[in-house]
């Protein structure tokens, strides 16, 4: 297996060297080690020079800016050109740490500059720790070298092709596009990259036209790593068209829905068996997008950093208020206790209304950069519906609806059951919420707070 992975990675590199304009680049996912070193050494076949980028680079370093010391000493404005002004192959190390603004600059540069080739070295350890999607989707190849054992790695042979173009027939374009859709790949950049890969492979085989083999290679190298569903799963987002009177058109498009089985098999062979698990995981609440927006807003989270030497570049600001707050205690436990004691208790259980209010408060907090978590203290027996009526059935349905909404919003929740006997209805509620169920039959304030603290660590840390 590892030999096959390695050969494919080397093939991807060869194709990229043959058509850097069409394929744009490669994402190499590997921990630092001899195998990665061997692969990086092989990058020398790409267009020289190799220009190193680092995620912590400032915008000025990339795009150029005023050279302050030169300007001051010479008395006239001296600009330093940025790294992106050079032409060559850009290699970004530790690409999984690339911040969104640097990624956006690079993406814009890729779009406007057909000669730019980008290699991302991604050392991410977790599944959702990876190079920014905005860059990944623009680069044709995604190779993962982590599955390779140490011994099998040998330097890839260097091959050169006599550069010429290969024709791709419309059927091949349609096949790759359909296959991409069947694999659940939404972006329309991907089929274009796959076509370029097929073309480059045909060129590498000294062919003037692409064959099935080229398409299979393209599907394996470009489409398979991005697949989000097995090809035989029903298509996502496919809506049955209301009425199609033209039988010919129907049969035609039905024919299109099944690209060459050979292509499907080529992809299926390389898809990991646990694809569905990984996809489901990444779609779960912990990974809602790349989370960049949430991180960016999080100026209220954590302790502000002390001042550091450097230039204020519009991204870093010192949070004075937070600094002062962090220095002085300002929350009063007694005050909170008094407020809680003042809350009215007893009466019916407007569970749906409670969940709604909690959800709104949590979303509001989230938009301010906090990481809210819902803790539910209830008997779970809803008897007041959302519209205020005392209809038990309606109340239950409303509560379930609200819980489903909270789950869809991705709000972590924990349901505390303080009854002497565990209530199945509460376990069910926490299930609907996708949260944790904590039966605490003999709880006092102290133990409850402990349990809740532990649950929060788990829920938010994950």
């Amino acid at each position, binding site marked *: 297996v590892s030999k096959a992975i390695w050969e494919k990675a080397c093939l991807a590199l060869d194709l990229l060297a043959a058509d850097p304009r*069409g394929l744009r680049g490669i994402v190499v996912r590997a921990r630092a080690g001899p195998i990665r070193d061997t692969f990086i050494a092989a990058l020398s076949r790409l267009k020289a020079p190799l220009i190193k980028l680092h995620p912590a680079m400032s*915008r000025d370093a990339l*795009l150029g800016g*005023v050279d302050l010391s030169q*300007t*001051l000493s010479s*008395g*006239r*404005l001296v600009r330093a050109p940025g790294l992106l002004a050079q032409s060559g192959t850009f290699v970004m190390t530790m690409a999984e740490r690339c911040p*969104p*603004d*640097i990624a*956006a*600059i690079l*993406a*814009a540069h890729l*779009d*406007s500059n*057909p000669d730019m080739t980008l290699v991302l070295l991604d050392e991410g350890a977790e599944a959702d720790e990876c190079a920014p*999607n*905005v860059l990944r*989707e623009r680069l044709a190849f995604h190779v993962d070298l982590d599955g390779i054992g140490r011994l099998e790695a040998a330097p890839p042979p260097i091959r050169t092709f006599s550069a010429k*173009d290969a024709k791709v027939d*419309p059927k091949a*374009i*349609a096949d790759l*596009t*359909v296959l991409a*859709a069947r694999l659940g790949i*939404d*972006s*329309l*950049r*991907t*089929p*274009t990259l796959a*076509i370029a890969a097929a073309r480059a492979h045909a060129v590498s085989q000294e062919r003037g036209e692409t064959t099935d083999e080229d398409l299979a290679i393209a599907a394996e190298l470009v489409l398979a790593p991005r697949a989000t569903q097995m090809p035989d799963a029903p*298509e996502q*987002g*496919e*809506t049955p068209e209301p009425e199609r009177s033209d039988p010919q058109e129907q049969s035609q*498009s039905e024919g*299109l*829905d099944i690209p060459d089985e050979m292509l499907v098999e080529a992809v299926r062979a390389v898809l990991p068996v646990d694809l569905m698990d990984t996809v489901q995981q990444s779609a779960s609440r912990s990974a*809602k*997008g*790349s989370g*960049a*927006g*949430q991180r*960016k*807003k999080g100026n209220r989270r954590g302790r502000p950093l002390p001042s550091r030497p450097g230039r204020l*570049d*519009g*991204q870093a600001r010192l949070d004075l208020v937070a600094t002062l707050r962090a220095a002085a205690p300002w929350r009063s436990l007694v005050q909170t206790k008094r407020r809680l004691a003042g809350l009215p208790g007893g009466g019916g259980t407007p569970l749906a209304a409670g969940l*709604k209010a909690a*959800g*709104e408060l949590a979303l509001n907090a989230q*938009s301010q950069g906090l990481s809210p978590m819902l803790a539910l203290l209830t008997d779970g027996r809803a008897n007041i519906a959302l519209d205020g009526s005392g209809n038990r059935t309606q109340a239950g349905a409303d509560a379930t609806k609200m819980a489903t*909404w909270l789950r869809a919003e991705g709000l972590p929740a924990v349901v505390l059951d303080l009854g002497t006997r565990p209530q199945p209805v509460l376990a069910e509620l926490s299930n609907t919420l996708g949260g944790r169920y904590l039966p605490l039959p003999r709880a006092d304030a102290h133990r409850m707070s402990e349990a809740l603290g532990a649950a929060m660590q788990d829920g938010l840390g994950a």
Partner: protein
Amino acid sequence: MTQAFPFSAIVGQDDMKLAMVLTAVDPKLGGVLVFGDRGTGKSTAVRALAALLPEIETVAGCPVNSANAKDVPDWAVLETKQMVSRPTPVVDLPLGVTEDRVTGALDIERALTAGEKAFQPGLLAQANRGYLYIDEVNLLEDHIVDLLLDVAQSGENVVEREGLSIRHPARFVLVGSGNPEEGELRPQLLDRFGLSVEVRSPSDIEERIEVIKRRDAYESNPKAFLRKWREADTDIRDQIIDARTALDKVKTGKPILRDCATLCVALGSDGLRGELTLLRAGRALAAYEGDNALGREHLQRVAALALSHRLRRDPLDEAGSATRVTRTVQEVLG
């Protein structure tokens, strides 16, 4: 920089194309927000529109692209007052841009060499009479977005910094795009964009194939591809130019005003900006299609563009807000 993909060759995404054309007809509409999946042609459409728009006449070398000599700001030192025509400016606003780069700031070079206090215009000056494009607008620093929306609304950039006190015209169409997965936009900001479009990857296989085929044709032989679509692009350009002159002549009857208001009340959109934008967008559409009066059918087509981002979130409604607008439009306007 290569030549842009032709606007008319963009497959599908009709809402996005319509929204962009409307802002070209009536720049006062107040910008477009395009939110949606990656690889759906958001950037392509903006660049394509820019390439399609008619050239503008400006004073040569004027930092704010003034339309005639008397509008040139006094801080700009020009050697000639000759008129030249140039393509409609489209200015990219990169993420992480600093405020001084956006608004303009003290000209360091002149301050150092000549000891003069001079103004170095920023991106807002460059974008005057054109487009300002922000990709990933939801990742932009809030204070920059505030500033941009403020200027976009008032049409004037006021700079009070480093001892400078400068104002210059900055009338531009703001186009923001982004991917909601990366983070939401504050509702206050949402509301300030005139139109909003949600784009999705086409689910129709035929449409997807057509997109890829055209892209491939464009990349293999850009010249031939551009030649093929030039005529269609020119048609759209002519239609936009005609619509700009026809815009003032579009009649708006009282019943239509009532329709606008009823619709916004039914949808519960906050404030009156919804009605105004709906009205303007409807008029721009009428002008673009050569109709001399604003009718219900115009409102029906622009309602989702003008209103879908002004609704309050309804946790119980799983359908998107665009669907809610369409539904209400059907109920109210029949």
